[in-house]
């Protein structure tokens, strides 16, 4: 897989039982660019994102990452996930492992890196996201913003070519939001392919190449951030932006 793989979604449809969560979704993310996904709650943003690394299965359509279609065999999925990092809304750090071990676990086992090498790399990453001094602590001793930055370091430790973020700042207080967004802006500027579910307009305007607006399982509108936020074309996007501006 190339350093900054592209993502291509072709006519993707997904049902939970009889509920259709994704309706014929098609989308392209160029290698090295950042795309922001937004839309009302329940519109299928998380579902779409989780299809990109095969955490969800779907019924129709294809997902192609770095030119390789995402398959369904366990081995294929594992190989794909090595190169696609994911950061969750609720951090999901491993609470029984130290911050350092959280970051080194996957490189040591999946990438078969030596202990010394993976710890050095992990320390570099932890320094980069600004939590180097907490390496020996358990995650529960860290603030939300610090935990989320550790989670980003954990994803980066696998040297992924794509990063997926699912509302990484919506469980954080305003100060921590800034800490985490700064790290993400830094990553986007360094040319990592990113798909980010977020309602942070400032972040989108600064680094996103494109904004994708979803509603009721389909993509309703896409555009450059400034265009989209300043004069959305569709009524649904207008209503949505009106809502988040008021809050």
């Amino acid at each position, binding site marked *: 897989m190339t350093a900054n793989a592209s993502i291509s979604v072709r006519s993707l449809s997904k049902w939970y039982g009889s509920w259709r969560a994704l309706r014929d979704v098609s989308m392209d993310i160029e290698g090295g660019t950042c795309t922001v996904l937004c839309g009302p709650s329940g519109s299928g943003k998380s579902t779409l994102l989780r299809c990109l690394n095969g955490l969800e299965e779907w019924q129709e359509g294809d997902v192609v990452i770095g030119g390789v279609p995402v398959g369904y065999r366990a081995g294929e999925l*594992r190989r794909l996930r090595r190169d696609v990092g994911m950061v969750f809304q*609720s951090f999901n750090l491993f*609470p029984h492992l130290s911050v350092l071990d959280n970051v080194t*676990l996957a490189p040591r086992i999946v990438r078969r890196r030596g202990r010394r090498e993976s710890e050095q790399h992990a320390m570099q990453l932890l320094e980069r996201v600004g939590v180097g001094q907490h390496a020996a602590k*358990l995650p529960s*001793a860290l603030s939300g913003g610090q935990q989320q930055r550790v989670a980003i370091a954990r994803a980066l430790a696998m040297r992924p070519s794509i990063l997926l973020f699912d509302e990484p700042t919506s469980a954080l207080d305003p100060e921590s939001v800034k800490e985490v967004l700064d790290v993400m802006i830094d990553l986007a500027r360094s040319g990592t392919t990113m798909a980010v579910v977020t309602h942070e307009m400032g972040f989108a305007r600064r680094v996103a190449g494109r904004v994708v607006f979803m509603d009721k399982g389909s993509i309703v509108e896409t555009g450059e951030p400034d265009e989209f936020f300043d004069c959305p074309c569709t009524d649904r996007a207008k209503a949505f932006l009106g809502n988040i501006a008021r809050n």
Partner: protein
Amino acid sequence: MAVSDQDMATGIWNAAEGDEADARPHLGPRQRWARRKAILQQAAVLLLVAAVAVFVIRNTVVNLQARGLASGFDFLRQEAGFKMAFSLIAIDPTSTYGRIFLAGLLNSLLVAALAIVAATMLGFAVGLARVSPSAPVRYVARGYVELVRNLPLLLHLLLWQAVVLRSLPVVREAIGLGGFAFLSNRGLYLPAPVAGDAKAMVVAVAVATGIAAIVAGWSIRSRAQARGEAPPRLGLVLAAGGLVSNAAAIALLDWQVPVLAGFDFRGGLKLMPEFVSLVAALTIYNSAFVAEIVRAGVQSVARGQREAALALGLPPKLILRLVIVPQAMRVIIPPLANQYTHLIKASALATVVGFPDLVNVFLGTSLNQTGRAVEIAVITACVYLALSTSVALATSAYGRRVKLVER
């Protein structure tokens, strides 16, 4: 279990304290009142307990004296005059009640220890199968659990007794296992070292260190494996050294092979069918409960943990072992300790099949012969209390070691 709950509570409290905890503040009015209330309540409870104890002891002593019954523990030094069908230390009709007590205790411990180890291993396997991604595996495990745990333990025991006794041949037609061990409806006959030798001590030490070395080597190896590293040489050397020392020790011993003499085998170690069915029934029955405890523990781990591990590309087996099970232990350990206590007490069912455990030979035969009901009941009760307490202490120590951390 009360002990572990308390430990977990203090654990949470410690974790909540920051790095730079400020100097402890003075007690507020509410804390002072709570403290005073606690002291008053404790004093009241202590008084009540002391009053009841004095009443019971006085009553017992008075009653015993009135009926002219002797009391005291001197009977432990008297000859018991009976034999035990199975014992780990030599017992003959001249053995004292004290020695009978010791032999019964060792038998109970042997049964409980074997059943706890086996039930834990089997229970973990079945419990993990209960949450397997493969549906047939889940169904089979579910069927096993439902079948096993819904039958009374006594029924398990009698079924095993029937199976072991009925299906095996008589002594004369015993099934030979390589000419060294024999299986018949009278039990399993194994070769055993001749005891009483000075050499036996040396050999025992060699075997013990050998086993310790193997265990240490194996755990170093598996830890390295879990970290994805090549196994360090130290682990291999330790394991190999342990194996060699064990082999040498075993070869050094004078082995006595059981031989058919008249109606029974002579020499070697004889495991009674009662022993085999007791251990089997305790193991199977408790494994079903352990399985449910393990399943509940695994399911208590947040869904996001599995997803985060999957998203990193970790293989499912290692996710279970490195991410899920360590966190599940927090939920597993307290009820598991409880289950062990159940098992230890249930081992007293040995009496039903006639296996000479502590209750059978001490609370049963010895009490009948001496009539020292109070003393014997008190000693037996103390033994079971001590065993249950050690289980609680051991598991809470283990719980602290595996860091039962807050999420």
